[in-house]
Protein backbone atom coordinates (compact mmCIF):
# COMPACT_ATOMS: atom_id res chain seq x y z
CA UNK A 1 0.00 0.00 0.00
CA UNK A 2 2.83 2.33 0.92
CA UNK A 3 4.57 1.62 -2.36
CA UNK A 4 1.36 2.27 -4.26
CA UNK A 5 0.85 5.58 -2.49
CA UNK A 6 4.46 6.58 -3.11
CA UNK A 7 4.14 5.76 -6.80
CA UNK A 8 0.87 7.65 -7.06
CA UNK A 9 2.43 10.66 -5.34
CA UNK A 10 5.45 10.51 -7.63
CA UNK A 11 3.22 10.36 -10.72
CA UNK A 12 1.17 13.28 -9.44
CA UNK A 13 4.27 15.35 -8.80
CA UNK A 14 5.58 14.48 -12.26
CA UNK A 15 2.31 15.52 -13.86
CA UNK A 16 2.30 18.77 -11.91
CA UNK A 17 5.87 19.55 -12.85
CA UNK A 18 5.18 18.75 -16.50
CA UNK A 19 2.12 20.92 -16.56
CA UNK A 20 3.94 23.84 -14.99
CA UNK A 21 6.79 23.52 -17.50
CA UNK A 22 4.47 23.76 -20.49
CA UNK A 23 4.96 27.15 -22.11
CA UNK A 24 1.93 29.19 -22.99
CA UNK A 25 0.66 32.71 -22.72
CA UNK A 26 -1.70 31.65 -19.97
CA UNK A 27 1.17 30.91 -17.62
CA UNK A 28 2.02 34.62 -17.51
CA UNK A 29 -1.48 35.67 -16.51
CA UNK A 30 -2.19 36.89 -13.02
CA UNK A 31 -0.87 39.07 -10.24
CA UNK A 32 2.75 38.60 -9.31
CA UNK A 33 4.83 39.97 -6.47
CA UNK A 34 8.58 40.27 -6.16
CA UNK A 35 9.96 37.54 -3.90
CA UNK A 36 12.38 40.16 -2.62
CA UNK A 37 10.08 42.18 -0.40
CA UNK A 38 12.88 44.70 0.16
CA UNK A 39 13.40 45.39 -3.52
CA UNK A 40 14.00 48.96 -4.56
CA UNK A 41 12.75 48.13 -8.05
CA UNK A 42 9.57 46.56 -9.36
CA UNK A 43 7.35 45.25 -6.60
CA UNK A 44 4.27 43.99 -8.40
CA UNK A 45 3.24 42.87 -11.86
CA UNK A 46 -0.27 42.29 -13.07
CA UNK A 47 -0.43 40.50 -16.43
CA UNK A 48 -3.61 40.17 -18.43
CA UNK A 49 -3.89 37.81 -21.39
CA UNK A 50 -6.45 37.97 -24.17
CA UNK A 51 -5.89 35.62 -27.09
CA UNK A 52 -2.38 36.34 -28.36
CA UNK A 53 -2.20 39.69 -26.60
CA UNK A 54 -0.71 40.49 -23.24
CA UNK A 55 -1.00 43.58 -21.09
CA UNK A 56 1.52 44.24 -18.35
CA UNK A 57 0.82 46.51 -15.41
CA UNK A 58 3.78 47.27 -13.15
CA UNK A 59 4.40 48.98 -9.85
CA UNK A 60 7.75 50.25 -8.61
CA UNK A 61 8.96 50.73 -5.07
CA UNK A 62 7.85 54.10 -3.67
CA UNK A 63 6.92 55.52 -0.31
CA UNK A 64 4.37 55.54 1.20
CA UNK A 65 2.67 53.57 -1.58
CA UNK A 66 4.21 51.93 -4.60
CA UNK A 67 4.34 53.90 -7.85
CA UNK A 68 1.96 52.81 -10.54
CA UNK A 69 3.83 52.57 -13.83
CA UNK A 70 0.64 52.06 -15.78
CA UNK A 71 -0.26 49.33 -18.25
CA UNK A 72 1.42 48.62 -21.58
CA UNK A 73 0.89 46.08 -24.34
CA UNK A 74 3.57 43.43 -24.29
CA UNK A 75 5.02 41.42 -27.14
CA UNK A 76 4.95 37.67 -26.81
CA UNK A 77 7.67 35.46 -28.27
CA UNK A 78 7.45 31.80 -29.23
CA UNK A 79 10.28 29.39 -30.08
CA UNK A 80 9.72 29.64 -33.82
CA UNK A 81 8.18 31.82 -36.51
CA UNK A 82 5.43 29.26 -37.12
CA UNK A 83 4.76 28.50 -33.45
CA UNK A 84 1.40 29.08 -31.88
CA UNK A 85 1.84 32.04 -29.57
CA UNK A 86 -1.10 31.22 -27.33
CA UNK A 87 0.17 27.75 -26.54
CA UNK A 88 3.92 28.19 -26.93
CA UNK A 89 4.87 31.69 -25.83
CA UNK A 90 8.05 31.56 -23.80
CA UNK A 91 8.79 35.22 -23.17
CA UNK A 92 7.14 38.62 -22.96
CA UNK A 93 8.74 41.96 -23.69
CA UNK A 94 7.14 45.09 -22.23
CA UNK A 95 8.43 48.64 -22.60
CA UNK A 96 7.54 51.38 -20.11
CA UNK A 97 8.37 54.88 -21.26
CA UNK A 98 8.54 57.40 -18.43
CA UNK A 99 9.79 60.22 -20.64
CA UNK A 100 13.12 60.75 -18.95
CA UNK A 101 13.78 57.02 -18.96
CA UNK A 102 12.66 53.85 -20.66
CA UNK A 103 12.48 50.46 -18.98
CA UNK A 104 12.31 47.28 -21.02
CA UNK A 105 11.15 44.15 -19.23
CA UNK A 106 11.91 40.66 -20.47
CA UNK A 107 9.69 38.20 -18.64
CA UNK A 108 10.18 34.44 -18.76
CA UNK A 109 8.52 31.63 -16.84
CA UNK A 110 10.67 29.85 -14.29
CA UNK A 111 8.68 26.93 -12.96
CA UNK A 112 5.75 28.44 -11.13
CA UNK A 113 7.51 31.78 -10.96
CA UNK A 114 8.48 34.49 -13.39
CA UNK A 115 12.01 35.58 -14.08
CA UNK A 116 12.25 39.28 -14.87
CA UNK A 117 15.14 41.06 -16.53
CA UNK A 118 14.73 44.80 -16.37
CA UNK A 119 16.78 47.29 -18.41
CA UNK A 120 16.42 50.97 -17.65
CA UNK A 121 18.04 53.57 -19.85
CA UNK A 122 18.03 57.29 -19.21
CA UNK A 123 17.13 59.69 -21.98
CA UNK A 124 17.51 62.93 -20.03
CA UNK A 125 21.28 63.35 -20.31
CA UNK A 126 21.41 63.37 -16.53
CA UNK A 127 24.60 61.37 -16.47
CA UNK A 128 22.95 58.50 -14.66
CA UNK A 129 24.03 55.09 -15.85
CA UNK A 130 21.68 52.74 -17.64
CA UNK A 131 21.21 49.77 -15.39
CA UNK A 132 19.96 46.21 -15.45
CA UNK A 133 18.37 44.19 -12.71
CA UNK A 134 17.06 40.67 -12.28
CA UNK A 135 14.14 39.66 -10.14
CA UNK A 136 11.95 36.67 -9.48
CA UNK A 137 8.20 36.99 -9.04
CA UNK A 138 5.72 34.63 -7.48
CA UNK A 139 1.98 34.46 -7.88
CA UNK A 140 0.24 36.70 -5.42
CA UNK A 141 -1.81 34.59 -3.03
CA UNK A 142 -5.51 34.97 -3.70
CA UNK A 143 -7.48 36.59 -0.89
CA UNK A 144 -8.40 33.82 1.50
CA UNK A 145 -12.07 33.31 2.12
CA UNK A 146 -12.12 33.54 5.88
CA UNK A 147 -14.76 32.62 8.38
CA UNK A 148 -15.69 36.27 8.71
CA UNK A 149 -16.67 36.48 5.06
CA UNK A 150 -18.46 33.14 5.20
CA UNK A 151 -20.45 34.39 8.14
CA UNK A 152 -21.76 37.36 6.18
CA UNK A 153 -23.98 35.18 4.03
CA UNK A 154 -26.40 34.11 6.72
CA UNK A 155 -27.27 37.80 7.21
CA UNK A 156 -29.19 37.65 3.96
CA UNK A 157 -31.52 35.20 5.63
CA UNK A 158 -32.63 37.68 8.28
CA UNK A 159 -35.76 39.58 7.49
CA UNK A 160 -36.44 43.11 8.61
CA UNK A 161 -38.13 42.02 11.82
CA UNK A 162 -35.16 40.06 13.08
CA UNK A 163 -32.48 41.56 15.29
CA UNK A 164 -29.02 41.71 13.76
CA UNK A 165 -26.42 39.45 15.45
CA UNK A 166 -24.37 42.47 16.64
CA UNK A 167 -27.31 43.92 18.51
CA UNK A 168 -28.02 40.53 20.01
CA UNK A 169 -24.49 40.43 21.29
CA UNK A 170 -24.82 43.86 22.86
CA UNK A 171 -28.12 42.89 24.34
CA UNK A 172 -26.70 39.74 25.82
CA UNK A 173 -24.01 41.71 27.49
Amino acid sequence: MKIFLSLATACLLLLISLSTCTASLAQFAGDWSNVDTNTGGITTLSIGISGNSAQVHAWGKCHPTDCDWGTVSAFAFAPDVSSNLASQAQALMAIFDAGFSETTLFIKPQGNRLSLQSYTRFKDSSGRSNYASSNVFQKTSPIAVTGMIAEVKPLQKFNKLEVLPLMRTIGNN
Partner: protein
Amino acid sequence: MRLLYSCLAAVLLLLLTATGGLAGMAQFDGSWTNVDTNTRGITKLDIAVMGTNAKVQGWGSCHPTDCDWGTVQAQAFASGVSSDILSGADTLIAVFDAGFSETTLVIKPAGNRLIVDSYDRFKDNSGRSNYLSSYTFQKAQAPGGTAPGGATPGGQSPGGMSPGGVIPGSVPALIDLTGVWNCDDGGKYYVRQLGTTVWWYGELDPNTPNWSNVMRGAISGNMINADWTDVPKGSIMQNGNLVLQIASNDKLVAISKTGGFAGSVWTR
Protein backbone atom coordinates in the same frame (compact mmCIF):
# COMPACT_ATOMS: atom_id res chain seq x y z
CA MET B 1 54.19 30.15 6.29
CA ARG B 2 54.01 33.81 5.29
CA LEU B 3 55.91 33.00 2.17
CA LEU B 4 53.44 30.27 1.35
CA TYR B 5 50.49 32.65 1.79
CA SER B 6 52.22 35.29 -0.33
CA CYS B 7 52.83 32.76 -3.07
CA LEU B 8 49.21 31.56 -2.94
CA ALA B 9 47.90 35.12 -3.10
CA ALA B 10 50.14 35.88 -6.04
CA VAL B 11 49.00 32.76 -7.88
CA LEU B 12 45.37 33.61 -7.13
CA LEU B 13 45.79 37.12 -8.46
CA LEU B 14 47.52 35.80 -11.53
CA LEU B 15 44.71 33.33 -12.15
CA LEU B 16 42.07 35.99 -11.68
CA THR B 17 43.71 38.37 -14.07
CA ALA B 18 44.32 35.61 -16.57
CA THR B 19 40.83 34.09 -16.57
CA GLY B 20 38.80 37.14 -15.72
CA GLY B 21 40.42 39.04 -18.50
CA LEU B 22 38.43 42.05 -19.55
CA ALA B 23 35.56 43.59 -17.68
CA GLY B 24 33.06 46.27 -18.54
CA MET B 25 32.73 47.56 -22.07
CA ALA B 26 36.02 46.05 -23.21
CA GLN B 27 34.75 42.50 -22.80
CA PHE B 28 32.27 43.00 -25.63
CA ASP B 29 34.73 44.44 -28.08
CA GLY B 30 35.72 42.39 -31.10
CA SER B 31 34.53 40.07 -33.80
CA TRP B 32 32.39 37.15 -32.63
CA THR B 33 31.17 34.03 -34.41
CA ASN B 34 28.30 31.73 -33.51
CA VAL B 35 29.62 28.49 -32.00
CA ASP B 36 26.87 26.71 -33.95
CA THR B 37 28.33 26.81 -37.44
CA ASN B 38 25.07 25.39 -38.81
CA THR B 39 22.91 28.12 -37.33
CA ARG B 40 20.19 29.54 -39.54
CA GLY B 41 20.09 32.61 -37.35
CA ILE B 42 22.85 35.06 -36.48
CA THR B 43 26.24 33.93 -37.69
CA LYS B 44 28.48 36.78 -36.69
CA LEU B 45 28.63 39.93 -34.59
CA ASP B 46 31.14 42.72 -34.80
CA ILE B 47 31.13 44.91 -31.72
CA ALA B 48 33.12 48.11 -31.76
CA VAL B 49 33.59 49.77 -28.39
CA MET B 50 34.74 53.36 -27.95
CA GLY B 51 34.60 54.46 -24.34
CA THR B 52 31.06 53.90 -23.13
CA ASN B 53 29.67 53.65 -26.66
CA ALA B 54 29.21 50.41 -28.53
CA LYS B 55 28.22 49.73 -32.10
CA VAL B 56 26.99 46.30 -33.13
CA GLN B 57 26.99 44.89 -36.65
CA GLY B 58 25.16 41.62 -37.22
CA TRP B 59 25.06 39.04 -39.97
CA GLY B 60 22.37 36.42 -40.53
CA SER B 61 22.74 33.06 -42.23
CA CYS B 62 22.09 33.42 -45.95
CA HIS B 63 23.29 31.85 -49.16
CA PRO B 64 25.63 32.33 -50.92
CA THR B 65 26.87 35.00 -48.51
CA ASP B 66 25.58 35.88 -45.07
CA CYS B 67 23.16 38.76 -44.78
CA ASP B 68 24.60 41.99 -43.42
CA TRP B 69 22.13 43.52 -41.00
CA GLY B 70 24.07 46.74 -40.83
CA THR B 71 25.43 48.55 -37.81
CA VAL B 72 23.42 49.99 -34.94
CA GLN B 73 24.22 51.91 -31.80
CA ALA B 74 23.86 49.65 -28.77
CA GLN B 75 22.83 50.61 -25.24
CA ALA B 76 25.11 49.49 -22.43
CA PHE B 77 23.79 48.58 -18.99
CA ALA B 78 25.56 48.20 -15.66
CA SER B 79 24.33 46.88 -12.34
CA GLY B 80 23.31 50.19 -10.79
CA VAL B 81 22.34 53.74 -11.64
CA SER B 82 25.61 55.03 -10.24
CA SER B 83 27.79 52.31 -11.75
CA ASP B 84 30.61 53.14 -14.08
CA ILE B 85 29.50 51.92 -17.48
CA LEU B 86 33.04 51.77 -18.84
CA SER B 87 34.23 49.34 -16.19
CA GLY B 88 30.93 47.82 -15.06
CA ALA B 89 28.82 47.23 -18.16
CA ASP B 90 27.38 43.73 -18.14
CA THR B 91 24.80 43.87 -20.92
CA LEU B 92 24.42 45.39 -24.37
CA ILE B 93 21.09 45.79 -26.10
CA ALA B 94 21.05 46.36 -29.85
CA VAL B 95 17.91 46.83 -31.92
CA PHE B 96 17.90 46.12 -35.67
CA ASP B 97 14.88 47.49 -37.52
CA ALA B 98 14.28 45.90 -40.90
CA GLY B 99 10.96 47.65 -41.48
CA PHE B 100 8.79 44.56 -41.57
CA SER B 101 10.44 43.19 -38.45
CA GLU B 102 12.49 44.32 -35.49
CA THR B 103 15.19 42.27 -33.81
CA THR B 104 16.32 43.08 -30.28
CA LEU B 105 19.58 41.50 -29.20
CA VAL B 106 20.36 41.17 -25.50
CA ILE B 107 24.08 40.48 -25.30
CA LYS B 108 25.74 39.25 -22.11
CA PRO B 109 29.25 38.00 -21.45
CA ALA B 110 29.70 34.44 -20.19
CA GLY B 111 33.34 33.81 -19.50
CA ASN B 112 35.15 34.32 -22.75
CA ARG B 113 31.96 33.98 -24.74
CA LEU B 114 28.82 35.99 -25.35
CA ILE B 115 25.28 34.77 -24.78
CA VAL B 116 22.86 36.49 -27.14
CA ASP B 117 19.08 36.37 -26.79
CA SER B 118 17.44 37.48 -30.02
CA TYR B 119 13.84 38.71 -29.88
CA ASP B 120 12.35 38.90 -33.37
CA ARG B 121 8.98 40.54 -33.77
CA PHE B 122 7.08 41.06 -36.99
CA LYS B 123 5.41 44.36 -37.77
CA ASP B 124 3.92 43.48 -41.15
CA ASN B 125 0.74 41.73 -39.99
CA SER B 126 1.88 38.66 -41.91
CA GLY B 127 0.64 36.38 -39.18
CA ARG B 128 4.12 35.12 -38.44
CA SER B 129 4.84 34.59 -34.77
CA ASN B 130 7.39 36.67 -32.92
CA TYR B 131 10.13 34.34 -31.80
CA LEU B 132 13.00 34.13 -29.37
CA SER B 133 16.34 32.49 -30.12
CA SER B 134 19.44 32.09 -27.96
CA TYR B 135 22.96 31.89 -29.30
CA THR B 136 26.48 31.51 -27.97
CA PHE B 137 29.31 33.40 -29.62
CA GLN B 138 33.04 33.00 -29.34
CA LYS B 139 35.79 35.38 -30.36
CA ALA B 140 36.57 35.02 -34.03
CA GLN B 141 40.08 33.88 -34.81
CA ALA B 142 42.48 36.61 -35.70
CA PRO B 143 42.91 37.27 -39.41
CA GLY B 144 45.51 35.13 -41.06
CA GLY B 145 44.62 33.17 -44.13
CA THR B 146 41.06 34.44 -43.94
CA ALA B 147 39.39 37.44 -45.40
CA PRO B 148 40.64 40.84 -44.26
CA GLY B 149 38.93 42.30 -41.25
CA GLY B 150 38.62 39.04 -39.34
CA ALA B 151 36.72 35.86 -39.91
CA THR B 152 33.80 36.15 -42.24
CA PRO B 153 31.26 33.33 -42.40
CA GLY B 154 32.03 30.75 -45.02
CA GLY B 155 35.15 32.63 -45.95
CA GLN B 156 33.04 35.07 -47.88
CA SER B 157 32.38 38.71 -47.45
CA PRO B 158 29.06 39.62 -45.88
CA GLY B 159 26.35 40.60 -48.29
CA GLY B 160 24.14 43.64 -47.95
CA MET B 161 20.99 42.39 -46.27
CA SER B 162 18.95 42.88 -43.12
CA PRO B 163 17.54 41.03 -40.07
CA GLY B 164 14.50 38.88 -39.53
CA GLY B 165 15.43 36.06 -41.86
CA VAL B 166 13.36 37.61 -44.65
CA ILE B 167 15.73 39.46 -46.87
CA PRO B 168 15.19 40.06 -50.58
CA GLY B 169 17.88 38.41 -52.60
CA SER B 170 19.02 35.94 -49.96
CA VAL B 171 18.55 32.20 -49.66
CA PRO B 172 19.40 30.02 -46.68
CA ALA B 173 22.32 27.76 -47.36
CA LEU B 174 21.67 24.29 -48.80
CA ILE B 175 18.17 25.10 -50.00
CA ASP B 176 17.12 23.74 -53.39
CA LEU B 177 13.37 23.48 -53.77
CA THR B 178 13.33 22.18 -57.35
CA GLY B 179 11.33 18.97 -57.54
CA VAL B 180 7.90 17.41 -57.31
CA TRP B 181 6.02 18.11 -54.11
CA ASN B 182 2.82 16.81 -52.52
CA CYS B 183 0.50 19.09 -50.61
CA ASP B 184 -2.13 18.47 -47.95
CA ASP B 185 -4.71 19.85 -50.41
CA GLY B 186 -4.29 16.63 -52.39
CA GLY B 187 -2.47 18.33 -55.24
CA LYS B 188 0.89 17.76 -56.84
CA TYR B 189 3.20 20.72 -57.32
CA TYR B 190 6.04 20.96 -59.81
CA VAL B 191 8.55 23.39 -58.35
CA ARG B 192 11.50 25.11 -59.96
CA GLN B 193 13.94 27.27 -58.03
CA LEU B 194 16.31 29.59 -59.82
CA GLY B 195 18.42 31.51 -57.36
CA THR B 196 16.05 33.45 -55.15
CA THR B 197 13.06 32.99 -57.40
CA VAL B 198 10.73 30.02 -57.22
CA TRP B 199 7.94 28.92 -59.56
CA TRP B 200 5.45 26.13 -59.44
CA TYR B 201 2.66 24.58 -61.34
CA GLY B 202 0.17 22.73 -59.14
CA GLU B 203 -2.87 20.68 -59.98
CA LEU B 204 -5.28 18.36 -58.28
CA ASP B 205 -5.44 15.85 -61.09
CA PRO B 206 -3.33 15.60 -64.25
CA ASN B 207 -6.30 14.89 -66.55
CA THR B 208 -9.33 16.83 -65.40
CA PRO B 209 -8.25 18.89 -62.40
CA ASN B 210 -10.83 20.74 -60.38
CA TRP B 211 -8.16 23.36 -59.92
CA SER B 212 -4.71 24.12 -61.27
CA ASN B 213 -2.50 27.03 -60.39
CA VAL B 214 0.84 28.70 -60.97
CA MET B 215 2.96 30.57 -58.46
CA ARG B 216 5.95 32.87 -58.56
CA GLY B 217 7.74 33.80 -55.37
CA ALA B 218 10.84 35.44 -54.01
CA ILE B 219 12.90 33.59 -51.43
CA SER B 220 13.98 35.78 -48.55
CA GLY B 221 15.86 34.07 -45.79
CA ASN B 222 13.70 31.08 -44.91
CA MET B 223 10.52 32.63 -46.30
CA ILE B 224 8.89 32.82 -49.70
CA ASN B 225 6.68 35.77 -50.57
CA ALA B 226 4.60 34.74 -53.57
CA ASP B 227 1.71 35.53 -55.89
CA TRP B 228 -0.41 32.69 -57.18
CA THR B 229 -3.23 32.36 -59.65
CA ASP B 230 -5.44 29.58 -60.95
CA VAL B 231 -5.08 28.76 -64.65
CA PRO B 232 -7.82 27.38 -66.88
CA LYS B 233 -6.82 23.78 -66.98
CA GLY B 234 -9.04 23.55 -63.94
CA SER B 235 -12.39 25.19 -63.50
CA ILE B 236 -11.82 27.27 -60.36
CA MET B 237 -10.45 30.77 -61.05
CA GLN B 238 -8.96 32.45 -58.04
CA ASN B 239 -5.74 34.20 -57.15
CA GLY B 240 -3.93 35.70 -54.21
CA ASN B 241 -0.74 35.84 -52.16
CA LEU B 242 1.16 33.29 -50.19
CA VAL B 243 3.82 33.56 -47.52
CA LEU B 244 5.56 30.23 -47.13
CA GLN B 245 8.13 29.21 -44.58
CA ILE B 246 10.91 26.92 -45.75
CA ALA B 247 10.77 24.58 -42.75
CA SER B 248 13.41 22.40 -44.38
CA ASN B 249 14.67 21.52 -47.81
CA ASP B 250 11.78 19.05 -47.99
CA LYS B 251 9.00 20.89 -46.25
CA LEU B 252 7.15 24.14 -46.87
CA VAL B 253 4.55 25.58 -44.54
CA ALA B 254 2.05 28.29 -45.43
CA ILE B 255 2.23 31.16 -42.95
CA SER B 256 -0.38 33.31 -44.62
CA LYS B 257 -2.71 32.81 -47.58
CA THR B 258 -5.17 34.93 -49.50
CA GLY B 259 -7.58 34.17 -52.35
CA GLY B 260 -8.94 30.98 -50.82
CA PHE B 261 -5.82 28.88 -51.24
CA ALA B 262 -6.46 25.52 -49.53
CA GLY B 263 -3.04 23.93 -49.14
CA SER B 264 -0.92 24.50 -46.04
CA VAL B 265 1.93 21.99 -45.97
CA TRP B 266 4.08 20.76 -48.82
CA THR B 267 6.47 17.82 -48.55
CA ARG B 268 8.56 15.71 -50.87
